[in-house]
């Protein structure tokens, strides 16, 4: 059971990161490889604020989210918007280029060393035979609140509904008078801010370094595919499941197989259900 709790915490962070990734995939139609670097950037902004300017962790997290969110929006306007018409391949490779540039900037700025938040996780609570710290509860709770707000935003607000409209049929949405520009800007901001949030949480839980970006984008991709790239809620559940599977598998086999398990699961799911676990619609790409 203890590992299920660990998995829940890991999975929450993964879910937050993957939901942002899936949002961009849905509305902008490409895999944003630079998403992992935005996550790392968020973690760095947070750790610098906390350790060098002794800012409260929640404030630091919020600042990091807004800062990276705005930064993500700027990147979208400067880097992705001009090549948007050229389709998925160009956008994908542009995002790989951007990921390299961001990684370089972070190496130059923050160095390659490992940084720690050095934040106490508070007291341990024993529920049955499971031990969980206050900090871990906060992470899971924050994830729940974030997902709920995102859900409310996408379902109840006009802007959120526009986002979903563009995601399901961009042309039809445009015909119906949805501003593609506003939707795009919203999605980029939200996606980057969520990446930063995941980055800060991951940084608090483990450590911060410039390898974070490349390391996490793989698992984010896995979660996004498992959930079905078209479904935000599927991605959410997939993130949680993946986190729990990775941590529970540590009970039975060596922990070094952790990511092998994650990717093995991914390949297995693609074989059995190429459209992802949680989508009803078959993936067009997989039908031929």
């Amino acid at each position, binding site marked *: 059971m203890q590992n299920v709790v660990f998995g829940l915490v890991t999975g929450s962070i993964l879910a937050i990161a993957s939901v942002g990734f899936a949002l961009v995939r849905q509305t902008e139609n490409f*895999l944003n490889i630079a998403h992992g670097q935005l996550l790392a950037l968020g973690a760095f902004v947070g750790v610098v604020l906390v350790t060098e300017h002794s800012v409260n962790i929640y404030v630091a997290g919020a600042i990091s989210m807004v800062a990276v969110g705005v930064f993500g929006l700027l990147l979208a306007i400067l*880097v992705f918007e*001009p*090549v948007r018409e*050229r389709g*998925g*391949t*160009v956008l*994908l*490779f*542009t995002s*790989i*280029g*951007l*990921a*390299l*540039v*961001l*990684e*370089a*900037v972070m*190496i*130059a*700025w923050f*160095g*390659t060393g490992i940084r720690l938040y050095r934040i106490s996780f508070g007291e341990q609570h024993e529920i049955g035979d499971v031990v969980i710290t206050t900090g871990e509860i906060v992470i899971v709770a924050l994830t729940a609140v974030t997902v709920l707000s995102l859900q409310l935003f996408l379902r109840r607000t006009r802007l959120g509904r526009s986002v979903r409209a563009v995601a399901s049929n961009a042309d039809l949405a445009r015909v119906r008078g949805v501003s593609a520009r506003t939707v795009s800007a919203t999605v980029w901001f939200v996606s980057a801010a969520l990446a930063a949030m995941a980055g800060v949480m991951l940084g608090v839980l483990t450590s911060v370094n410039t390898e974070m970006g*490349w390391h996490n984008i*793989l698992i984010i*991709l*896995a979660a996004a*595919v498992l959930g079905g*790239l078209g479904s935000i809620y599927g991605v959410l559940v997939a993130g949680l499941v993946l986190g729990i599977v990775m941590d529970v598998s540590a009970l039975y086999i*060596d922990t*070094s*197989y952790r*990511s*092998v398990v994650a*990717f*093995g699961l*991914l*390949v297995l799911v*693609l*074989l059995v259900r*190429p459209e992802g676990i949680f989508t009803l619609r078959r*993936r067009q*790409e*997989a039908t*031929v």
Partner: protein
Amino acid sequence: MTSVVFWVGVLTLVGFYGILAMILNMEGGWGGMWDLGTAGLLAVASYFFVIVTLDDAMLGTRFAPGWPLWLAWPASAVFTGIVAFLVSLPALRLRREYFLITTFAFAEIIRQLIVVQDDLTRGVIGFSGLDRPFDDVVTGRDYNYVLLGLVAIGVVVVFLITRVVARSSFGLLLRAARDNEALALSLGRKVNRMRRETFVLAGVLIGAVAPLYLWYIRAVTPQLFAPAVTFTAWSALVLGGLGSIAGPILGAFLLIVFTEAVGLVDWSPDQANLATALEPFLVGMLLIVVLRVRPQGLLGERGAFRRATRRDRSDDATEPPANDALPAPAMSTPRSG
């Protein structure tokens, strides 16, 4: 400041990445298969080759058959081909980005397995000081010329193979299936089988060139097969021109010479971070800028297939209009032929 030997080494690396980019071009450029598993197959080939040629059980590995070179080299090509076939079974059920993710996942699984299975692969330590052919004939620095020669032969052979594929009806069909899979299927072509054959051919070629890479590095560790290898080869291909025949080599040349030359700059120790950051920064910027200014790469696909397109104008319809701007100059040779 720099020695000739240094640039010989750089050219060897150019050749090697040129080969990888040409293989990727065959899969990705013509076959439409976005393969991010190159580093994985390269790792399979390298470890297979190193392990079967081991003759010293003292290194603490479980398995050291000590095969001779003439057996180990072709065997590594065949073995990598078989692994590529196995990977293609799940991967080819998917298209485009799903294919990309599956192959990427496969490469990561391989790399993790290499780290974990240390009784066979010596984990993160790997093997170093590998034996090379002609090592006792040509010694020291001169060996770099031998290596350059071997890689140059590799480049020519792979170039000729990909050119034959590109100009054959097989290559035309691959491109047709990439642009309109439903149409190719309706013409009765076995699209999936063709893609599988291309994927396996790529595996065999990677298996065949892996020893060259090993002799260049003279060591094998899991770190060598990080995703960066795949990304560098893809970047070279995208820069040179996805789909063109000579583009991959041009792209690899520009990319590798550029980054190696930057590495020559003397940095003071307190600027160590800047020095480390410079290479990914420049590669990333190069990618972003080239894709912005010239999305088809320096040599586009249209230039490479000019003669074919002139004979059959309908081929043009599938090309983005941006290609009309500049016909690729270096590919003008097919015109006269």
